[in-house]
């Protein structure tokens, strides 16, 4: 009996240690962005005009979070494009597309740049993330909206990296959803994208 229990523990230990090894010291893509239905339903109401999405830059001047986000030594990279500017571009496009208000032909274009993009996964009981971006709306090439929006969130975490790292990764798309939600909730943005 002791041998059986000991063998089982050994197997579980190997599995967990392998999991830890898998999670640390390498580049792992962030989860796919998944639109927030609250955002989609909101933008359907506020943006009757079709919108285009331009590029969001992730300037090299950012201290971190342009190319990758460090999670306890593991590097989380964008699963789309070359940096997290492309992740935000794709996220906004998906939100508008699902709401049926995205068009590459539209003369109203939303673009901008990431300013802050960090996740702290080092905590042993809670962790948090912050994101901030500059959003610019151009109508026929003329800037009609230029503001920064930010979002942050906190979640319960764990001492174990095998739990803390995937939790941090899974919360990143939710953080981006919150950022886009801030944009759609801004009355000035609503005015900027409404059909004249």
């Amino acid at each position, binding site marked *: 009996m002791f041998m059986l229990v000991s063998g089982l523990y050994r197997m579980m230990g190997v599995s967990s240690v392998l999991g830890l090894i898998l999670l640390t010291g390498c580049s792992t893509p962030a989860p796919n962005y998944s639109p927030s239905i609250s955002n989609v339903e909101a933008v359907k109401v506020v943006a009757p005009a079709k919108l285009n999405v331009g590029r969001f830059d992730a300037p090299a001047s950012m201290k971190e979070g342009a190319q990758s986000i460090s999670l306890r030594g593991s590097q989380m990279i964008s699963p789309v494009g070359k940096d997290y500017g492309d992740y935000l571009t794709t996220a906004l496009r998906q939100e508008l597309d*699902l709401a049926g208000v995205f068009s590459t032909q539209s003369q109203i274009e939303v673009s901008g740049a990431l300013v802050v993009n960090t996740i702290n996964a080092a905590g042993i009981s809670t962790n948090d993330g912050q994101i901030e971006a500059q959003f610019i709306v151009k109508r026929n090439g003329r800037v009609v909206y230029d503001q920064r929006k930010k979002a942050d969130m906190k979640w319960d975490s764990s001492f174990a990296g095998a739990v803390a790292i995937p939790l941090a990764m899974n919360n990143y798309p939710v953080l981006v959803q919150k950022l886009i939600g801030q944009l759609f909730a801004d009355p000035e943005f609503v005015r900027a994208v409404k059909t004249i």
Partner: protein
Amino acid sequence: MKRIFLTAASLLTVAFLAGCAHPINMRPDVSLIQAGGAQKINKVAGYHISDANLALEVTTPGGGGDKVRYFPYRDVEAGFYKALSETFTKVSKIANPKDTAALNAAGINLLITPEITTTSYSPSPFTWPPTQFTVTLDCQVVDASGKELTRVKVTGTGKAEFDEFKANFSLSAVRASEDALKQLMAKLRETAVLAR
């Protein structure tokens, strides 16, 4: 004495590492949920997922005696919305399915309530991410008066081997979600009572 101490320390470490449920996600890539331009059913479809279900986290088996945990309704919702949008001419999220005044105001013809169940499995004694995953969507469809028209049930499967999931521990779950949602679109179209 030293041997007893080492054994105890090893068992404690293993128990600590092996006792956790690893967070994964099952968010599909919504850009892959497409009906390929097939004609939509000319109905306004509403769907309802309760707040309790959106907050529901489930735990199922992984490999090596470990477990995985995830949020089925929260993760699948955007893909579900996209699948309905590809099938019906208009889709709305319904907060309260018993609010007939709101249903009538939104012009809802069909109200769909999904129930999501999942299974996961890995034969590996050494790695925890599931290699096999299933997602079952069991959808009750009622008309505007609340009369049940039909139930549509599909089961999607997802598989991922070590070489694939080492960069994405959620891969089999993501694939199962995508498969289930693609099947759902096809089955909804085949269900004649929904087009009447």
